[in-house]
């Protein structure tokens, strides 16, 4: 018996030790520095999204390669890169060759952090986040899918324009990177033939800091710290000199300001409409169609999420009516009854695989949302295809503009048709995920995903089948979960494609094909 206990105690201790050696779980996309598949030397000629031209934001001409001041800067970078502290080395490997990947990850992380539905007050009322007082509960923002889609779109479109401008100046001035000017400069990232001035990484950091701070005001200090580390890492890595960074930073700030000016007037500030307007949208639908979405929460939330998001200014679609879907089936119709029967069947007989699909795509509270899920896929495809930052920004920009447009179109349909969700329409019906606080028709997951899939397929045609399969799975997932009727998802999928095509058409003509 003593032997048994000795064995047990040894086994217990061994397990405890093994457990303490469990590998830390990844907190970001694991990738290592890569050589760019192309440099896109003509990238400065591509058509920007908002800038009139690549030269709209002026930066000073750099000191000549042979100048004493440039030589002094090269010497500074050389000294800094020669011997890195452990922290500096870690920062270089973290930001690596394509800081967009990390900033996109940071943006997703902030969405997950801020994507929590405000709790009810003690008296059963609800308070909305207040951008004028972001730190009061509920904190601003509530980063729900429309909010997130808009954030990703501004972040990435601004990056694209800033990098087009950076490329323009790089090849206009052609000032070499420090390691080209002095072969004895030690570098900790792959060397390229990209001219150094202005630093593209510094522009990326400046745009990210400006846009994300506007979107997540409580993260101001955190973002400033990250941007500073990113910019410093370019010196530590031996790939830029200080004036590259100053110019890149100034360029990024200038471009971000143009995008933030658009954001101020794009209609988002009216999207979270007051109760009277929200109620009137429901009343109009009831009058017009004979139904309205009613929030089923306890206590009831008086206003849906962003009822007027459908009126926010889109990027690529010409007008919202163009992509508005046909009306949903009327309750009682045979198509409606078939959809009800399908939902009831899943509710009783859901397979493990269907449940896994529902959970994999849930992307609900506390996550980066469906648009964030597609940004993750985009990041992975960008790294796998070794895209340079400019070309990466192009992917992010068109995908996220398409996603935001799809979201605007979806929200237009949601609040135009004001169609109830299954949990409202089918007596006793319950879902296996949290039911969102906005009308069901059409499905946001389906619309966002179809728009993302069609744009990503354009940029990565060899992955088209995978992207389309994912979009279909995302659409199906909401039916499995009991969140949507089949037609919500199917029509959303078609609608998302229709929105995405406009973005693809613009991409085809921007000079970057």
């Amino acid at each position, binding site marked *: 018996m003593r032997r048994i206990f000795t064995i047990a105690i040894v086994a217990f201790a061994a397990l405890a030790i093994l457990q303490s050696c469990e590998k830390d779980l990844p907190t970001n996309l694991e990738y290592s520095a890569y050589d760019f598949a192309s440099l896109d030397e003509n990238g400065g000629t591509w058509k920007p999204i908002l800038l009139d031209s690549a030269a709209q934001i002026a930066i000073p001409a750099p000191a000549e390669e042979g100048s004493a001041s440039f030589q002094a800067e090269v010497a500074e970078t050389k000294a800094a890169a020669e011997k890195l502290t452990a922290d500096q080395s870690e920062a270089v490997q973290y930001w690596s060759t394509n800081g967009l990947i990390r900033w996109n990850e940071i943006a997703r992380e902030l969405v997950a952090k801020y994507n929590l539905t405000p709790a009810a007050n003690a008296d059963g009322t609800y308070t909305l986040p207040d951008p004028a007082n972001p730190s009061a509960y509920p904190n601003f923002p509530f980063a729900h899918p429309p909010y997130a889609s808009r954030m990703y779109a501004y972040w990435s479109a601004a990056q694209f324009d800033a990098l087009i401008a950076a490329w323009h100046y790089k090849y206009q001035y052609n000032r070499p990177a420090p390691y080209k000017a002095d072969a004895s400069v030690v570098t900790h990232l792959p060397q390229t033939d990209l001219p150094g001035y202005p630093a593209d990484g510094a522009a990326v950091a400046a745009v990210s800091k400006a846009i994300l701070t506007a979107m997540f005001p409580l993260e101001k200090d955190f973002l400033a710290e990250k941007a500073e580390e990113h910019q410093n890492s370019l010196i530590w890595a031996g790939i830029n000199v200080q004036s590259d960074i100053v110019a890149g930073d100034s360029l990024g700030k200038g471009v971000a300001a143009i995008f933030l000016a658009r954001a101020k007037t794009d209609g988002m500030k009216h999207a979270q409409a007051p109760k009277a307007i929200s109620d009137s949208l429901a009343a109009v639908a009831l009058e017009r169609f004979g139904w309205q979405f009613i929030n089923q929460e306890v206590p009831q939330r008086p206003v849906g999420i962003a009822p007027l998001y459908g009126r926010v200014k889109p990027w690529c679609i010409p007008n919202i009516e163009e992509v508005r879907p046909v009306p949903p089936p009327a309750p009682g119709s045979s198509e409606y009854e078939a959809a009800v029967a399908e939902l009831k069947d899943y509710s009783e007989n859901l397979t493990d695989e269907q449940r896994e699909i529902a959970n994999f795509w849930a992307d609900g509270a506390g996550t*980066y949302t469906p648009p964030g899920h597609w940004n993750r896929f985009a990041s992975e495809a960008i790294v796998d295809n070794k895209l340079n930052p400019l070309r990466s920004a192009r992917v992010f920009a068109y995908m996220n503009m398409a996603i935001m447009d799809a979201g605007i179109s979806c929200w237009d349909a949601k609040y135009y048709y004001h169609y109830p969700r299954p949990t409202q329409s089918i007596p006793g019906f319950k879902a296996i995920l949290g*039911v969102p606080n906005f009308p069901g028709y059409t499905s946001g997951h389906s619309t966002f995903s179809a728009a993302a899939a069609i744009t990503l397929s354009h940029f990565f045609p060899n992955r088209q089948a995978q992207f389309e399969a994912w979009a279909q799975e995302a659409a199906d997932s909401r039916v499995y979960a009991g969140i949507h009727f089949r037609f919500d998802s199917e029509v959303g999928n078609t609608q998302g494609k229709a929105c995405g095509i406009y973005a693809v058409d613009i991409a085809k003509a921007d000079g970057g094909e």
Partner: protein
Amino acid sequence: MSSFLIKTLIVSGLLLMLAFPKTALAQTPNDAIMMEKGQLCIAAIYGHDSWDEYWEGTLKRKNGNIGTFTRRSVMGMFSLGITDNINLLGGLPWMKTDPSAGQMKGAKGLQDWGLWVKAKALEFKMGKSSLGLYPVIGLTGPASNYAVDYLPFALGFGAYELMGRGIVIYEHEKGFYLRGSYGYHLRSNTEIERDYYYTTHGVYSSTVDMPNASSFAATLGALVLDNSLKIELTYDGMNTLGGSDIRRNDMPFPSNNMEFTRIGGSLQYYFPFAKGLSVLATGGYTLSGRNMGQTTSFSGGITYQFGLWTPKGGAVD
């Protein structure tokens, strides 16, 4: 009536709680009574626990979209005397969780199987009383592919848990006893059905690093009515060693820092006219907690004990 049988029934009665590693009364093998070699006790227990308030981190709240949370369970258990000093115990519960309000469904299915080995390691006689030390080691693991990331409706954590527990008991020959125990619970990682989640930071994995936990219990017990009725009063609790708090108005997560203290009691009655048969009832109430519901629990069951084989050189009562 033999006190041995009573003890056997007490063992099985308490065992009913073994299979509720995440909930309810006495969550681990917690008694200090051994079955003799060759004796088998089987039990069937119905359990019911419910709460309408829970702790979101340390904030106690109601949730109109859950209403009253109820869990019902049915469990089969056994306890076998391998030798007089080593017992093998096992249990398997089926359960169903339901909210009374809201738009989300509950869950149902087999939860976690459990197997434990308990031994009598030391016993000191001191006049009219005795002091005993009983180590227990056990393993629990998911018995079905339930959804782990579906709290509070999830049936369990989906993790394997290795539990080590030390039990000390002071018994007086007049039929009362004091028992104390401390347990340590080593938990494996668990898997959820999505590959990104946010706790205090984002994680790009479907694997969740589950914090370990410790547990304690203190029990005052007595045997009355000519040893046919056992009465116990227990104060116990659990402390998760690490983990995050539920954020404001967020869903709970398997690796939350869950804690509770609880007061509970149990009664077990052995029928004089039916050898080997007993009924039992328990009740418990959560006094304090963190990232868990304030549960009120009841259970009732029946146990039957009999000789599976007759050990050489000794007759079973």
